[in-house]
């Protein structure tokens, strides 16, 4: 099932001359995929992720999430979509410093109107899934970088979203911790999460089943060869992945 479908998406930032950050990008992602978006700095990776995450709207083209054209939704409608169907992980974690790990993870359900007790119960489960069951009551300043990013990942998955979006989740971490985080993402993917991760790190990206390469706002490569080995014989990888570019 296709979770995400981008068709001819273009994004221009105003200015003179205007910056074309995305140029005719088409991309399709199926449920259960784990894909990396790679590319040089300034190639448009974050812009693409923000548009997928509905934090930003494209200048032209269509974004469809779980069958719903995003253009049809109001600002509040997009917020509702994000609250239930999209999980974000940021390079700089974006944790609230004054509250505990559990409460941070519970904010992932705050805007879905889930009651506090239930939020905390689900948050505890999510922290256990990311291996932080022993750090529930710790506040971010008491956690290591890798632990903070695990808390952020737990917050992204606590609501069981359709897509998890991670923009440079390992950008602030050392290489060893980065590998741990990528392994965690793979494990969550094995458990069924659809994950899109931006990374600079070619080595990390090389391990992932599918890589979409951006250059100057265009998709120049969509490489699914590793995962092709996992796909049953006779199925065309590009079609299985819904690649339309």
């Amino acid at each position, binding site marked *: 099932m296709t979770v995400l479908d981008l068709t001819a998406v273009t994004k221009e930032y105003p200015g003179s001359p205007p910056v074309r950050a995305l140029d005719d990008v088409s991309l399709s992602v199926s449920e259960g995929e784990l894909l990396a978006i790679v590319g040089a700095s300034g190639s448009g990776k974050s812009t693409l992720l923000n548009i997928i995450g509905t934090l930003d709207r494209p200048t032209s083209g269509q974004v469809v999430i779980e069958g719903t054209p995003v253009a049809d939704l109001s600002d509040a409608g997009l*917020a*509702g979509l994000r*609250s239930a169907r999209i999980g974000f992980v940021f390079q700089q974690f974006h944790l609230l410093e004054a509250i505990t790990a559990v409460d941070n993870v519970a904010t992932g359900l705050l805007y879905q109107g889930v009651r506090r007790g239930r939020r905390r119960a689900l948050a505890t489960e999510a922290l256990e899934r990311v291996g932080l069951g022993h750090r529930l009551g710790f506040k971010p300043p008491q956690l290591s970088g890798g632990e903070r990013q695990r808390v952020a990942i737990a917050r992204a998955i606590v609501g069981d979203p359709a897509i998890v979006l991670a923009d440079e989740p390992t950008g602030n971490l050392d290489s060893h911790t980065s590998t741990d985080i990528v392994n965690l993402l793979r494990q969550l993917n094995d458990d069924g999460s659809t994950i899109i991760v931006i990374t600079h790190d070619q080595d990390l990206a090389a391990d992932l089943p599918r890589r979409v390469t951006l250059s100057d706002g265009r998709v120049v490569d969509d490489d699914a060869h590793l995962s092709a080995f996992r796909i049953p014989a006779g199925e065309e990888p590009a079609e299985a992945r819904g690649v339309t570019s």
Partner: protein
Amino acid sequence: MKNAANSRSRSHWRSKLLPADAVVTGTHGLRSRKGRTLLTAIGIAIGIASMVAVLGISASSKADLIAEIDKLGTNLLQVQAGSNLFGESAKLPEEAPAMVRRLGPVENASSVSRLDTDVQRNQYLDDNNGLDVLASEPELLDTLDGAMAQGRFLDTGTATLPTVVLGSVAAERLGVRTLDGGPTVQIAGRTFAVIGILEPLPLNPDIDRAVLIGNEAAEDFLGAEVIPTAIYLRAIPELVEDVRSVLPRTANPADPSEVNVSRPSDALEARAQVDENLQNLLLGLGGVALLVGGVGIANVMIISVLERRGEIGLRRALGATRRHIALQFVLESASLATLGGIVGVGLGSAVTYTYARRQDWLVDIPVQALGAGVAGALVLGALAGLYPAIRAARLDPADAVRPA
């Protein structure tokens, strides 16, 4: 088709913030920056405290004054002979006290006659002590509702003897503090025994400054002609104004314009009025302090919005609508101000209590002022937070989550 998809998706995915969570979210920023919260709340606290203290202190002083006026009664009237064209103080007709007493609503009346002489502690002194010598009647004490600090007032016996009763100020100026040892005073070269000292009479400072002797004694020992210069009277409270209006004609039918009628309690009530003007001025100053506090909160909230771009972006990514963000910052600002309001109300009450107790007043802290203080702070905070909240809500979420 498009519409159907639209409405379906909205009912499926709708951001929702429970009221209890809105409150917790709205105070999150305050709890994570306690020092700044306290410092910012101080402005509002001072404004509210000063307003509560002004209202409380003036209410306490007024309560005290009103209790005092109530105790003294507002039905005392005073008839005074005006001064004539040559500036000499005129006298009332001899029969004036009797005429006044004859008025139906007059409960009782007493007259005094100011004698053209002075009083000294002993024959060697010749101070200009500003004390009056008044010839009077034993009923005066009743009419004025006065009380004795020491000794007794004139009675039908002592009114015929060379004895005096001293007003409270007169006793002080003459240096008579006690009746022990039989103090005396000198009036027109004659010795008079002091038989009593009056308690202060708040409505009659003229009596406080007087030395009282009996009418008969004045005639017998000083050779004075006793003609009334003032009449004090108590009227039935409901008819005070009626009595007041007929008094000039009653006291001096031949020349009503030569008579001044006054109501001593009016002077005390006027004091309460004057306080009100001062109170409004002080309230205005408190209002200015409050306004400055509100502007301070608005400033701090704007800075807070700038600092918390990341948090705002995060919340938008987690599904907060613009409204949720605006609500968070308005609530934060309102709770910040409310905190200041609560501290201010407490502070203002403490100041009022301490001050009133020190003045020996009744403590009267108006409950409405306390409620209005907290509610006013809340409203002020919400207003101060409006602009910062709108700025926070308008932040572009994609911009806000981007690393600075």
